[in-house]
């Protein structure tokens, strides 16, 4: 296996970090990224934060695009994907700004996409014991959607809710033009990509729990909305591709 962690230039890699009110968490993430993933460009998409996220990002000398209005997680990610497309990047890595994704684990994703020639690499918390303490309800949700992905595609994806991913140019191109980029780009999007014939591989990664602040799935109503929307979208995605599978 060749290690691409120290590679300079050649393939252009962009790390996309969506951030909304992450002033308390984003500083250490960026410092660590600059040190450990020096071969990649870093782009923070500030989703119209009301705190000083933007100032902290700029103080760290990292590129920051501010959405002109609050677009929420998925469409903020898509802004980054469009940026990657416009600036002709070969690979994009998605990372959270809350410190949950460990920066040097991004190298594993990049190495895997180069070595396996996959279209999407998912950083998974569950294919190897990594010491990650997953909240009980999240674990149930992950298992449920992993079952759903397996049922609809026949492919085993242990962590379909992981946002720690690396995609290649083909996927950048497809998602940048995708008019129906889902509100929650998790299990349903994985189902869609598998049914379209894209190659998805999982790689074990370590993750931490959120450093501070509230998750976008915190509270009572948000997880219920997430579960029902995701479940419904998975079914609709499956139905959409009946009779036209592997269309890539």
């Amino acid at each position, binding site marked *: 296996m060749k290690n691409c962690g120290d590679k300079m230039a050649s393939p252009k890699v962009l790390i996309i970090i969506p951030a909304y009110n992450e002033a308390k968490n984003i500083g250490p993430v960026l410092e660590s990224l600059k040190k450990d993933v020096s071969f990649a460009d870093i782009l923070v998409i500030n989703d119209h934060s009301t705190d000083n996220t933007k100032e902290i990002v700029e103080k760290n000398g990292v590129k920051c695009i501010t959405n*002109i*209005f609050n677009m929420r997680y998925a469409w903020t990610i*898509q*802004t980054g994907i*469009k940026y990657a497309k416009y600036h002709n990047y070969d690979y994009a890595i998605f990372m959270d700004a809350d410190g949950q994704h460990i920066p040097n684990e991004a190298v594993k994703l990049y190495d895997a996409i180069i070595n396996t020639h996959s279209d999407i690499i998912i950083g998974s918390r569950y294919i190897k014991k990594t010491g990650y303490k997953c909240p009980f309800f999240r674990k149930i949700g992950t298992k449920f959607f992993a079952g759903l992905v397996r049922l609809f595609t026949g492919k085993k994806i242990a962590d379909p809710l992981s946002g720690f991913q690396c995609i290649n140019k083909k996927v950048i191109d497809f998602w940048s033009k995708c*008019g*129906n980029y889902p509100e929650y780009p998790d299990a349903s999007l994985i189902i869609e990509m598998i049914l379209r014939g894209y190659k998805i591989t999982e790689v074990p990664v370590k993750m931490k729990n959120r450093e501070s602040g509230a998750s976008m799935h915190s509270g009572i109503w948000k997880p219920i909305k997430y579960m029902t929307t995701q479940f419904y979208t998975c079914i609709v995605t499956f139905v959409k591709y009946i009779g036209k599978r592997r269309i890539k």
Partner: protein
Amino acid sequence: MTPMSIFLTTIAILVILYVLISIRRNKLSPANSFIWIVFCIILLVLSIWPASLDWLANLLGISYPPTLFLAIALVILFIMNFIQSKKIEDLQKKIIDLGQELSIKKDDNNKK
């Protein structure tokens, strides 16, 4: 004409007038006004000639004709709501797309 018929006829005429005024003032496009005008014409016909409602209810095997009136109104409102839903979805996609493009372009401009 019963007081109810007079009331419904007045409502239908007022809505038709309001739709036409809105079109003249460019507040509503002719294409979007179509379904409202159709809805009001149906309401007008049914309220001026209540016998037509009885005839139609009989034809469809509905024993209580006013139920048919409510059913027609519900179906029309359901269709209108569905059309609006699709339009909102379409507009939402365009707004997000515009917002994303603008956010990126704004950043490019700042760089220059």
